């Protein structure tokens, strides 16, 4: 027995070590992800070195930039960048509120709601291993960080705190396969669960095929997961495929697009409204009215009918009489003196537009309609009868 053990000592030890680690794995998978003590030890051992390296690097580069290259320019740039980030957050909040139809209600909401209380943190290290999608930030339990807090940037969500150490925290990025968050689409209010895939793109799960999701649509946090406050951008839809039983919706996360240097940990979350969809309200060009719309209509009517009707002829006669007496139909109380109608032979042709080309039958222009010939002389209608008809028409059109 002893010789057997000596002969296979190495392989036995190998199996024991593997078995021990398998047991360790099994215990962890069953537990509720409590932070093991060995993790605390390892992180506590590693993070001081990372902080030291970061301090040396930051100090060195800061000195070089501030005092050798550009005096104070870097500090000013950093300050301005912080201001831009804060203003961006403010802008999103204010825009959401101002988009509300009821301004008074928006103001009341603005007064009632304060923005989420956040804590700025710097990413000091990434997770060890090619397959790991976690980062360490320089804020820990000493700064008030707790496990489960949301981590965001002004562009969107980043991840959530999964482990808290005295002076550092471990953040699970939204691209990790273990990450999940409740989301809602901007247009249709379609709810789903965002899941990381270990790749740059994420996936929104549990959207049935009957729900409508479009490419280019934004997804926001729904607040259902009790981690991320409602209304933070998650990403934009890049592709939608119908699959059984749920749609396959791929999303490009917006929060980690610009890299991760500084993040905000939401200490006290405040839900926000999902911003409304910006409808593509393109201005429609409306051409200016023609100089004399009535004249154009008359010209068009005259052009449409080659032979004017009796009513057209009468209308021309009355118009000529009104023009001769300076009367404008529809205005004033005094009707024109229709006894003094112009002679039938001198009846002007139907009014043509002021800018229309003159009647030149020999050379018609394709663009300018030619004025039709003057109506024939009204020999069959006596003036008195015309006057009576005009009086009747006047009583009906003068607007008395």
């Amino acid at each position, binding site marked *: 027995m002893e010789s057997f053990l000596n002969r296979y*000592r*190495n392989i036995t*030890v*190998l199996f024991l*070590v*593997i078995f021990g*680690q*398998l047991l*360790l*794995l099994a215990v*962890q*998978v069953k537990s509720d992800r409590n932070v*093991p003590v*060995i*993790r605390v*030890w*390892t*992180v506590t051992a*590693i993070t001081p*070195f*990372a902080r030291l*390296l*970061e301090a040396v690097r930051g100090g060195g580069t800061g000195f070089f930039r501030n005092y050798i290259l550009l005096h104070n320019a870097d500090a000013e740039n950093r300050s301005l960048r912080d201001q831009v980030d804060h203003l961006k957050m403010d802008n999103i909040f204010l825009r959401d509120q101002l988009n509300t139809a009821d301004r008074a209600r928006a103001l009341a909401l603005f007064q009632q709601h304060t923005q989420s209380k956040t804590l700025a943190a710097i*990413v000091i*290290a*990434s*997770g*060890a*291993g*090619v*397959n*790991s*999608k*976690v*980062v*360490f930030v320089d804020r820990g339990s000493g700064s008030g960080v707790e496990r489960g807090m949301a981590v965001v940037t002004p562009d969107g969500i980043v991840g959530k705190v*999964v482990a808290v150490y005295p002076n550092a925290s*471990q953040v*699970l990025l939204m691209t*990790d*396969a*273990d990450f999940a968050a409740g989301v809602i689409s901007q247009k249709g209010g379609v709810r789903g669960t965002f899941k990381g895939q*270990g*790749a740059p793109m994420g996936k929104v799960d549990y959207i049935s095929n009957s729900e409508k999701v479009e490419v280019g649509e934004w997804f926001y946090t729904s607040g259902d997961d009790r981690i991320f406050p409602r209304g933070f951008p998650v990403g934009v839809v890049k592709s939608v495929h119908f699959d059984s039983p749920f749609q396959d919706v791929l999303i490009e996360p917006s929060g980690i697009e610009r890299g*991760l240097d500084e993040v905000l940990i939401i200490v006290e979350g405040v839900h926000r409204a999902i911003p409304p969809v910006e409808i593509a309200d393109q201005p429609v060009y409306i051409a200016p009215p023609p100089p004399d719309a009535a004249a154009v209509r008359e010209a068009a009517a005259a052009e449409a009918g080659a032979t004017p009707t009796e009513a057209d002829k009468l209308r021309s006669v009355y118009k000529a009489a009104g023009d001769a007496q300076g009367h404008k139909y529809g205005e004033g109380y005094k009707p024109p003196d229709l006894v003094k109608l112009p002679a039938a032979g001198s009846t002007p042709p139907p009014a043509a537009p002021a800018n229309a080309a003159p009647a030149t039958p020999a050379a018609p222009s394709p663009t300018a309609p030619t004025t039709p010939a003057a109506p024939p002389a009204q020999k069959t209608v006596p003036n008195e009868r015309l006057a009576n008809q005009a009086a009747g028409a006047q009583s009906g059109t003068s607007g008395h």
Partner: protein
Amino acid sequence: MDYSGGRVLLSSQREGQSTHYSPRVLILVPLAAILFQVYIPQFFHFLQFLELPMLVVVYFALMRRSQLGGLFLGALVGIAQDSLTIKPLGMYGIVKTLVGYFAASVSVRFDVEHSIIRGMLCFFFYLFHQCLYWVMERALLGHQPPFEMQSWLVQGGLNAVVGLALFHFLDKLRSSA
């Protein structure tokens, strides 16, 4: 040990003698490799493919020619690496334990100071490392990680190149005794 030139196989196990390192080297080098792994890729994303902890485990396992030493070093480095990830403790631990054990097993047959052998072993163990991790992630954690053999092949080649330079540097840390 003399550099063996074009010969890649050892004629006997006696020919391959273990190399000694001071305890400081055995502690600080893996620690530096892990620190590199967590710190450098956040500034140089293209260096994320590097698996320096694995290369260090392979190096010490090859040079010390001790299966027990290799598996324990792999287990310690792997668990330390696991501690810095979100994955359960033991994933990298098991993988690197096996890497250390097999690297030490191989070292008694090959001339591990030969550059080509070193490069091939780095390449092979990187692929082994990635494939085993992929299998364990599927089998033990129930995840569905992508099987990226093409990128692993390329990254294995790059790790082999880096491993050669790293091994050359670590050779200088050998104890004279």
